[in-house]
């Protein structure tokens, strides 16, 4: 799933070499601002066919949280 998520990140941030890990946060990717965040969330929802609530999105602190949330939603 990390690889699938990484592909979404690479598409959104237009960077084919982007490597993500569970500890990565918005502070680690220069382009990850509010605008890109909206695009990222929408792309993840579309890729994994899920919809996040506001509280779920607000609770995300890093890629690990995101992965965990996707896994929970997919169950």
């Amino acid at each position, binding site marked *: 799933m990390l690889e699938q998520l990484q592909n979404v990140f690479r598409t959104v941030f237009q960077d084919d070499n982007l490597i993500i890990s569970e500890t990565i946060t918005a502070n680690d990717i220069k382009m990850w601002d509010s*605008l890109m965040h909206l695009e990222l969330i929408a792309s993840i929802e579309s890729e994994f066919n899920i919809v996040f609530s*506001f509280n779920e*999105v607000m609770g995300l602190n890093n890629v690990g949280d995101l992965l965990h949330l996707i896994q929970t939603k997919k169950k």
Partner: protein
Amino acid sequence: MNHQSGTDFQELLVSGFLNNLILYPNNNALFVNNQYYTYQQLWQIVKQIHQQLSAQKQHLRIGVYCTNNIETYATILAINLYGAAYVPLNIKFPVSKNKKIIEQCNLQLILISKNDEKLHELKQQVKSTFITISNVLNVQPTELKNEIKINPNDYQKVEQPYVYILFTSGSTGEPKGVPISKTNTNHFFKYFFKNYNFNERDRFLQVYELTFDVSVFSFFMPLMVGACCYVLPNDGIKFMKTIEYLIKYNITVVSMVPTTLRYLENYLPEIKLPDLCYSFFSGDALHHNLAVKWSKAIPNAVIHNFYGPTETTIVCTRYVFNAKQSEKESVNDIVPLGKPFKGMEFIIIDEKNAPTQKGELCFSGTQVINSYLNNTNEDRFLTYQQKQFYKTGDIASVNEFENLIFYGRTDSQVKINGYRIELTEIENAISKTLDTKCIALTKKNNNSLNQLIVFIEEKKVDEKELKKRLGTILPDYMIPNQFIEVEKFILNINGKIDKQYLLDTYSA
């Protein structure tokens, strides 16, 4: 406690803080980096920095290399107490921009609290003295038993007219200094003392960078009424953090840019903020449909839409939002700017500077600057009936309810997340970097958010490399989202580059 003092309003902004230090020494004054500081603790830190400052030779303007920490906020208070004007430098700005600000202000002294690579580079390029604010956090608060009243005059070391100097985007690439005087800020805050009953139980949220003038309201206003200022951290996604803080800390007063609502639009039905009492907007056009949705998330709050360029001291008009009335008055879904504050007057002029119904909005009055720093005034001021008016560049008219209505700009200035951006500044930076013609434009994306797009003529672009190089000249918020290569610019019937054609043809 009624804080509508009015008549005995003191000159230094810090005076209000000093009064509340005596009244509420153990109230929380500041929450920053997950730590509370009471009025008493903050005062101890301010005093330490003030001592460090006083040990230097006298300075009328002092730079602050701003970062989100207690030292930065305390430094601003200490400079105000010392009597000098503070000039915020932004840790996120490229070195070249901070350097220009230092040079234009002729800053001899800059206070820092955090070292980074860019600061190291900056130090090599300017002659100023840099002083690190240190050891202030180890100070233990002492009892204030003998201090019945702290007289700011005892601490004031220099006299000069300004509180702060901020810089706006300039079309030539040179930032323009806007010196805001004590008279300007005193009139600004008088309006809020007269029209609002903020008190020591309020919790304000400070979401702005200190180079953005609304931060002056969000930081100083709570300290003037004995309340607590919560500083939004720099990390994470800003609009998410804003809501998180509003909920977590039961914030009662917040000022935001309207773009925040655009980011939140899809989530607004899920948000409930019953503690919020005042929701202020400024910095960009507030859209009626979004304000209506937002009003449902904040059942106990009023929404006030403010307007004002930096040159008119933070904000100078207000519209009290009411969904029904706003529906009648909004034009192009944009909520009116409202009526000017007391002491301010406006005229609307045409291209020949003659009064007209719909045209460029100009302000005169107690909150308007007399001049830009170093008199770089160009044609931004005009004299009408023996009064000096500042030309805002905003197109406006007055409706039947005597409220100002906003339509757009007379020039190429745009707003991105509330930041004032001259598109020509971006074009200049790219043209110099690539040695080719280019056009910078904005286009709304799927979320109706403004995106910066640059069209470049006859040049292959390595986008990553270009963004990196532009990052040394422009702040992050001015770096375009997209670069589009165009074979040849098409001219319209007026002989100007057809911008609409570019948007329609290349950026669909």
